[in-house]
């Protein structure tokens, strides 16, 4: 196969339920699949995969755009990558202070010994906050997804 031949770049569309879609062109896209990170290059096979909470990176040359998404699904077909997710934010739009506060809140909730804590919910909130922080620059704690 002619791997060196550059196909048409990828078109990425990220649709969140209550936000106008982001549309980006890229040469390489990495996605937070529920079963592990994966990358999409031009000419990728048709794929449908569920996504977890995490960061979508779209690279075009030296330029890289980063989005935080909250679960959902990705569809790759003929160099069109469609991401449907509950919430999506571009890295520039992230409010670091808010994410920082959310992380503290979730941390506190997980560490408190009371029975009333909804662990699954607090963990999900923590994951979202960490993804936001990771996307918007130096993460507050290393190892954030």
């Amino acid at each position: 196969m002619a791997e060196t031949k550059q196909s048409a770049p990828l078109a990425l569309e990220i649709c969140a339920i209550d936000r106008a879609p982001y549309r980006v062109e890229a040469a390489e896209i990495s996605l937070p699949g529920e079963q592990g990170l994966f990358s999409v290059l031009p000419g990728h096979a048709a794929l449908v995969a569920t996504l977890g909470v995490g960061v979508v990176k779209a690279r075009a040359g030296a330029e890289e755009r980063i989005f935080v998404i909250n679960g959902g699904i990705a569809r790759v077909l003929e160099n069109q990558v469609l991401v449907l997710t509950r919430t999506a934010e571009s890295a520039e739009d992230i409010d670091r202070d808010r994410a920082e506060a959310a992380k503290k809140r979730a941390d506190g909730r997980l560490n408190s010994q009371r029975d009333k804590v909804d662990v699954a919910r607090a963990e999900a909130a923590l994951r979202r906050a960490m993804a936001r922080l990771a996307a918007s620059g130096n993460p507050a704690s290393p190892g954030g997804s």
Partner: protein
Amino acid sequence: MPNLQGIRRRIASVKSTQKITRAMKMVAAAKLRRAQEALIKTRPYAYHMRELVNGLIAHIDPTDHPLLRKGTGDKVSLLIVSSDRGLCGGYNSSIVIETMRLLHEDFKGRNVELIVVGKKGVDALRRRRGKLKASHLGIFDRYTVSSATSVIDPVVEEFVAGQTSEVYCLYNEFKSAISQKLKLERLLPYEPEDTGKLADAYFIFEPSAEEIVSALLRDNLHAQMHRILHEAMASEQGARMAAMDSATNNARDVIAKLTLKYNRVRQDAITKEVVEIVSGAEAL
């Protein structure tokens, strides 16, 4: 002879009504713009979601999926989306009339349960039909995505449990600021209209196609409900703006008519007085 003061009072009262309708029109126009923007944001997600579901259903065996098979029994859930506030022309009454028509014609003889969103629809249908299955009031004021799920989820659970055989939704689709189209959509059992090119593509699924389609079917219901409620919000404001616009114009016509009448009566009175004075002078 109609008295002058009475006419003057009526003009003043119509004018103040006109002031109110004009202000309401302005408010509705501003709200319409916001609702329209929100609707335009939600449509791509809902449309993509529908397209994806429709295409992927072809990749699984649909016979036994709880959201795809037709339920048993004759019970039907009918979701009706009206508005919480009035003064929006025929918006709510057309919904109620269509609901009654559906009950007496299309769903005749079937056991229909009504789930109504919006105070106006709830009031009118409760008067006409007695008890409703569920009513949702005030969800438009503080609307979030979870408002949509709170409306649709109980209905879906009932369907999955086999208590209802079909789920329909009656709502206004937003066409433009001055036109809305009443639309009856069947939500469940879900039936893809056209499968598109996704049905033929050979996909890698992660995890299995069944799991993905199951998750998508639910997400799609949420997305469609979210869109439907946004369509309704925009339609309501459009209807209100149009209604208030025509009310303002009617008030202007009434004022013009009354002013003409007022002047005529005033002139008549003056003429009469002049005639009286002249004839009085002649008599001397």
